């Protein structure tokens, strides 16, 4: 039977929902034990949250001032030290997990399965390649340790269970490098629902034309209580910060409702929204590829239609 270790993602003393999504994937792998490891300067709060999640066997805490910020080079040797007792080491396919898990895998001498989107068995998975234009089935050898990242948008978060898992401080002896130092995090504004977990998302593209014009997108989003995303073109043009990019190289999201406004629907963008419930597109070009995937399409000038839409809500 599999014994799975999940590396918790957290910030500001709070567990990131990506951890509960990893847990859902882990449960589908048929494990005899699923432990969650929390690396932090002060892990208690995050550990208490993780311990409540349904199906967790134990929460292991590794308290160290060096773990105050998640630096892959610092965390990786500690994860490796814990990994000895497990068949699987999992993390989320977020920028946190993408940075850390390959470093862990290489130190272990193992290959990594990136972006698991479907669990077929303990060592058999589906994952996307070519921006989601092909889905491959990957078999990992059962006799080796498996390192993998789990695609957030493909799994629902596990909720809290009836019982609370025990929390144990883990003794980790690993030499930590000094070559990497955290300077600062320039965090985006936090006044809207988080793009990666919001049930509704409104995104704007190049058509917005300027940062000022993007206000029509924010206004509609606020009316809907939605998170706000953007195409790469809108980010590259400086209308919005990079953490709002949706797509192959940005965030992969799965809201119930996605509204794409002035976005043409390039494959690199579409791969980020394939798992959305309902896609709405507003575009002045009736031939825009976005309409091929949209459940509801509206052709016209966004600067006229979006305020009209907002007024009707």
């Amino acid at each position: 039977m599999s014994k799975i270790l999940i590396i918790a993602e957290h910030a500001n003393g709070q567990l990131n929902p990506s951890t509960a999504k990893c847990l859902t994937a882990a449960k589908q792998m048929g494990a005899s034990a699923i432990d969650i490891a929390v690396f932090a300067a002060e892990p208690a709060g995050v550990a208490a949250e993780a311990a409540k999640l349904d199906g967790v066997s134990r929460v292991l805490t590794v308290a160290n001032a060096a773990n105050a910020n998640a630096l892959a080079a610092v965390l990786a040797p500690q994860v490796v030290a814990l990994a000895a007792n497990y068949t699987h080491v999992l993390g989320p396919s977020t920028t946190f997990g993408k940075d850390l898990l390959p470093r862990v895998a290489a130190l272990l001498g193992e290959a990594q399965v990136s972006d698991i989107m479907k669990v077929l068995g303990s060592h058999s998975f589906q994952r996307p390649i070519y921006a989601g234009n092909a889905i491959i089935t990957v078999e990992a050898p059962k006799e080796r340790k498996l390192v993998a990242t789990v695609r957030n948008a493909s799994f629902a978060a596990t909720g809290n269970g009836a019982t609370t898992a025990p929390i144990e401080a883990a003794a980790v002896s690993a030499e930590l490098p000094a070559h990497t130092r955290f300077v600062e995090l320039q965090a985006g504004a936090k006044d809207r629902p988080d793009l990666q977990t919001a049930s509704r998302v409104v995104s704007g593209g190049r058509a917005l034309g300027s940062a000022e014009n993007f206000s029509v997108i924010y206004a509609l989003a606020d009316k809907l209580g939605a998170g706000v995303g953007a195409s790469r073109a809108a980010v590259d043009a400086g209308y919005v910060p990079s953490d709002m990019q949706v797509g192959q190289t940005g965030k992969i999201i799965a809201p119930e409702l996605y509204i794409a406004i002035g976005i043409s629907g390039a494959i690199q963008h579409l791969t980020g929204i394939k798992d959305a419930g309902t896609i709405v597109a507003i575009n002045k070009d009736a031939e825009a590829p976005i309409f091929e995937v949209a459940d509801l399409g509206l052709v016209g000038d966004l600067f006229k239609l979006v305020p009209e839409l907002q007024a009707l809500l």
Partner: protein
Amino acid sequence: MKILVAYKRVVDYNVRIQVKPDGSGVVTDGVKLSPNPFDDIALEEALRLREKGVATEVIVATIAPADAQAHLRNGLAMGANRAIHVTTDRPLQPLTAARTLLKLVEKEQPGLVILGKQAIDDDCSQTGQMLAALWGKAQATSASKVEVNGNVLRVTREVDAGLEVLDVDLPAVVTTDLRLNEPRFIKLPDIMKAKSKPMETIALDTLGVESGDHLKTTQYAPPAKRSKGVMVKDAAELVAALKSKGLL
């Protein structure tokens, strides 16, 4: 300081990928191949560091079949000083690619290795981090800004929460995000000049790389198709449709 740039050849990002009907792979015969867009950005950054006098030499390296010479000439035309072609006929998984790059690192002793944050074929996002781990050096992934201060690199990284700034000691591994720079266009005279630049060919089998290709791909399938929906004529109809779906 030498900079080593990993420069992968992939199916061009404009190609509509088709899965073979028998599920044995994707169609690559006759499709346009191009440098991985992130690797072009990696090379551009290396060239800029050379132009600023921080680097003295830029080496592009690829691990690919023998016909990838033209691809490397492209990197030389962009401005790399020389190229290393590690030849192999099989596609490598990231761990093996990282182990191979480590051999080149040991041989060339670069002060910095720059790679793309992902290759747009397998979308793995692993090789840079794996190389940094095997080399025992710092990594700064998804870089959107790189500044050199003596022996320290200050890197701004695109992360989910915003922008993270790290200081890493050189030597180090950096992987590039899209906004790090805009790669230059290659001019005709550069293509001529590239023809005389040195290109070293090394057979992968002679490097003694332990294979890390542990994973087996057993099937390729096209993604689930989203069906074309309906068009509404105005905002009022859109609101009505959303309400009837229970979304408002």
